[in-house]
């Protein structure tokens, strides 16, 4: 396997220009969508089958009239332990030699297990093609020596593309620098390969708690619950069975008493 590639999105450098969002649409030829009213600059409200990069605009009023406007370019995390990949029954979702997670459109049968298996709400279903869609890290570009379109278009280097280990080292330094500058809540999200989901190949530097950015604090793949939930299911089945037996027995008892 080749060295793992990654994208590091440093939200402290994001200016919300959405060049990434447009570059993604343009390169991947994702079609026109009618936006919904979100009440802010953000469009769209969620990832869609035609929006793989999404800049989030989060207004945070502070005491004494000051405020923060948190800007964050969100994308598929290409998890080391990927829920979508685990759930895919046809093998359409594959891990590439670079460590990214890709949906092979020719193999996808549209079962949508991946849609519900993604802890981030990234994978979406396209009703025209009948298949699941998400960011591929610009699979065609990275296999031809080019970075993803979003990273290429970013004017402030908020989105950086490169080898994962290099980027993690850089991100670790950056977060320390920001903390020293007074950004007390500055933190990395998904950089730790020992952490949740085995680390994210698209990881982030956040300036506030993950929940502020609509990110789960401790995301998990649903599959991890299979064994535990199976035990619960077996237990439940046993209880239902036992209950039924008791119920029938009592019903029998009742009948007998009727005769009595």
């Amino acid at each position, binding site marked *: 396997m080749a060295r793992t590639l990654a994208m590091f999105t440093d939200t402290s450098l994001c*200016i919300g220009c959405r060049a990434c969002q447009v570059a993604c649409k343009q390169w991947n030829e994702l079609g*026109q969508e*009618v*936006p919904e009213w979100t009440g*802010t600059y953000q469009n769209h409200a969620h990832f869609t089958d035609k929006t793989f990069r999404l800049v989030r605009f989060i*207004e945070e009023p502070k005491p004494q009239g*000051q*405020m923060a406007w948190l800007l964050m370019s969100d994308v598929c995390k290409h998890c080391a332990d990927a829920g979508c990949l685990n759930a895919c029954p046809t093998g359409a979702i594959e891990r590439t030699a670079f460590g990214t997670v890709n949906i092979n459109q020719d193999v996808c049968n549209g079962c949508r297990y991946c849609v519900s298996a993604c802890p981030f709400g990234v994978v979406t279903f396209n009703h025209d093609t009948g298949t699941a869609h998400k960011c591929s890290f610009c699979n065609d570009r990275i296999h031809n020596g080019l970075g993803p379109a979003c990273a290429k278009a970013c004017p402030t280097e908020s989105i950086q593309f490169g080898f994962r280990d290099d980027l993690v080292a850089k991100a670790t330094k950056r977060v320390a*620098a920001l903390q020293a500058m007074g950004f007390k809540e500055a933190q990395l999200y998904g950089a730790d390969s020992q952490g949740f989901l085995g680390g994210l190949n698209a990881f982030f530097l956040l300036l506030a708690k993950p929940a502020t950015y609509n990110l789960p604090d401790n995301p998990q793949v649903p599959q991890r619950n299979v064994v535990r939930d199976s035990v619960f299911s077996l237990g439940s089945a046993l209880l239902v069975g036992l209950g039924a037996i008791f119920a029938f027995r009592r019903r029998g008892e009742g009948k007998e008493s009727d005769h009595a």
Partner: protein
Amino acid sequence: MTTNLIDLQYADVIMATSNMAENHPVGFQWVMKAKERGAKFIHVDPRFTRTSAAADLHVPIRSGTNIAFFGGLINYAIQRNLYFREYVVAYTNASFLIDPEFKTATDLGGLFTGFDPGKKTYDRSSWKYQLDGEGNPRRDPTLKDPSTVFQLMRRHYSRYTVEMVEKICGIPKAIFEECAKLFCGNSGPEKTGTITYALNLTQHTTGVENIRALCMLQLLLGNVGRPGGGVTALRGHANVQGATDLELLYHELPGYLPMPLRDAHPDLKTWLDRETPKGGFWVNRPKFMVSLLKAWYGAAATKDNDWGYDWLPKRASADAYSHQHIFVDMYNGIIKGFLALGQNPAVGGPNAKLARAAMQKLDWLVVKDIFVTETAEVWKAPGVDPKSVKTEVFFLPAAPAAEKDGSLTNTMRLIQWHEKAVTPPGEVTSDAEFVTSLASRLQKLYAGSKKPRDRGLLSASFTYGDNPKEPDMLLVLKEINGYATQEITDKDGKVVYKPGQALNTFAHMTDDGKTAGGCWIYTGVTVEGPDGKLVNKAASRKPADDKDYLGHGWGFAWPANRRILYNRASADLSGKPWSEKKKLIWWDPAAPGNEPDKKGKWVGLDVPDFNPFLAPDAKNGDKPFIMRTDLVGAFFGPLNDGPFPEHYEPMESPVRNLLSRQQSNPVAKVWKVPDQRNELAEVGSTKYPYVITTYRLTEHHLSGVMSRYLPMLAELHHSHFAEISHELAKELGIDNGDRVTVSTPRGKIFVKAMVTHRLKPFDLGGRKVHQIGIPWHWGYKGIEGLPGSRGDITNDLSATVGDPNVYIQETKAFLCNVQKGEV
């Protein structure tokens, strides 16, 4: 701009007064780099924007009070001794004595000496230096004489206290003091700061004075001509700097030469006498003017016919021909035909409703654009019966940049070449092809005319290369650059230029017809290589590196590839850098001089904006501002509205001017337009109680022609909207997403309300003033299936009023009403 965007990263403090992150996101990378280096970043804006989101400090300011803000900073720097005294004494006119008759607005109730209330102009005869016996300005280097510019300036701005700034601008005292401390505290030999501005300062009836106030602050803090300093003027779109340099303007000829006035400049000699100053680099103006005329009229231009000066059109008045004048004249039936090339005034200009009504009165209208714009379909604008419009409209499809060769000059004077990537489809042509073919057709129509006024058109050549239908753009660039019209030899008879050879520098231009050049400041952009072929420096692409952080190998920055203007000011009087940290150019006494037995030269990290062999101790060797007659930076700088910027309220304001009884700029231009098409709200109007500002968004471009037709851009904003504070929304019962009516005496529009914490009402000494904001990208054309790509025209709300120097509109601050629903 005086500086270079790359250089922003070395600033210790950056104050954006414009919305730079949203409107100049690519250039903004250098602000982020500066921040990574530890620079402080301040954003001054009525709204909390994406630029504020990146700032260490957001300073909310009521629209239209910029001079009060800058004046407050000037006063703060002087009172607390935070100015760079050595720089100010040596490199500016602070120590010059002014005519004792002159009085500032502090003594004359908001006016300066010489105001004529009848004519609404100033008699400027006392706005001048005191001269000594030899005709030089009298000076007091101690800055103590009450007649010094410094003392007059101090007195003028003494009224601009922190408390006054709070009451006028609505900036809380603590925030203003923090801002002043951060910005003024980061100057001196070891530190520099820069200020960005854009239309936020220009689009006011005090537009030019706003910018002067900014420049004065920068001079006072010693920030001009130094690394990490300067005035960062951010131009509105890709080539607006190029359009200014080549003067697609009404009052200047290419290279900032004044456009002749009919009465003041009847012949070339008068023009040269009046427009050539006695000192500074503009003493060369005759060379640039004659070379320009030679470039335009070629062999027909001779000494005997004043190089064709008579053929130039002359202005009948200085108060005419600006964008706003044109549309008023069009509405009044004076202008009958109109060519709109890549412009969409039906949406983009002030009082757009008037502009559309004016265009509907034309005999003919030609629109050349990349999409069928609102201007092209002005005859079927909403509410107009097409049958009632007699205008004949021609639409010509235009090629965008990727379909043609050419250059763009960006905000930092950087000329960058672009090559044609694809051939335009069908009958689409470039603007250059259109202009040259139109000109040659007109020449055929006028062939044989003996009228003197047609001589110019018939003498000019519009052929560039072998194919008259397809101009070779490199040859256009060469004409702009300048070339020898005949062999030029040096004093020893050695050939310096062959006939037709491109000039290397504007220093070689002459006023005897031996050189031609279409825009002197661009000279050097293309030169002849050793093989005799043209080397196009605008196409060079060597990125900046550690040895050349300013990237002199990338494109060509006018003039002479200088990246930071007035950079002599980066060194002290003796020619040494003010500090090691802030070095840029310096005098090297050991370097070989310009003659074999002489030593000494200016060297360093940039091309000196100075005579490279003029020693610091030589006459004028310590005067960096070479474009000015007196060679120093000007605190005292007479404009039509005064030698010092003074705060006046916008033409429409919710409050009285607290600084003086003079409510608005006394010499501003207010057009009288028939049919109640330019009515203004009164001061403190109850019918129109809210301040409104208009602006752009990152996702859209200007009037939307390059963005509303592209789904991936147009869908990024749901639809046209107004940003409204929670406080105002609550007062009016408006919820986020409600349709609202925004109206002014000129018009009304329906938009969605975006209720946000990013706008807050201003507290002006106990009085609450609400401000709303509306972007102006929308119009009645757009994309099928994307209803939000169409919307009402924001500029229907703005007025036809102008700054008295350049007649720019006041679209950043006026009054409106907001009502819930479509009223």
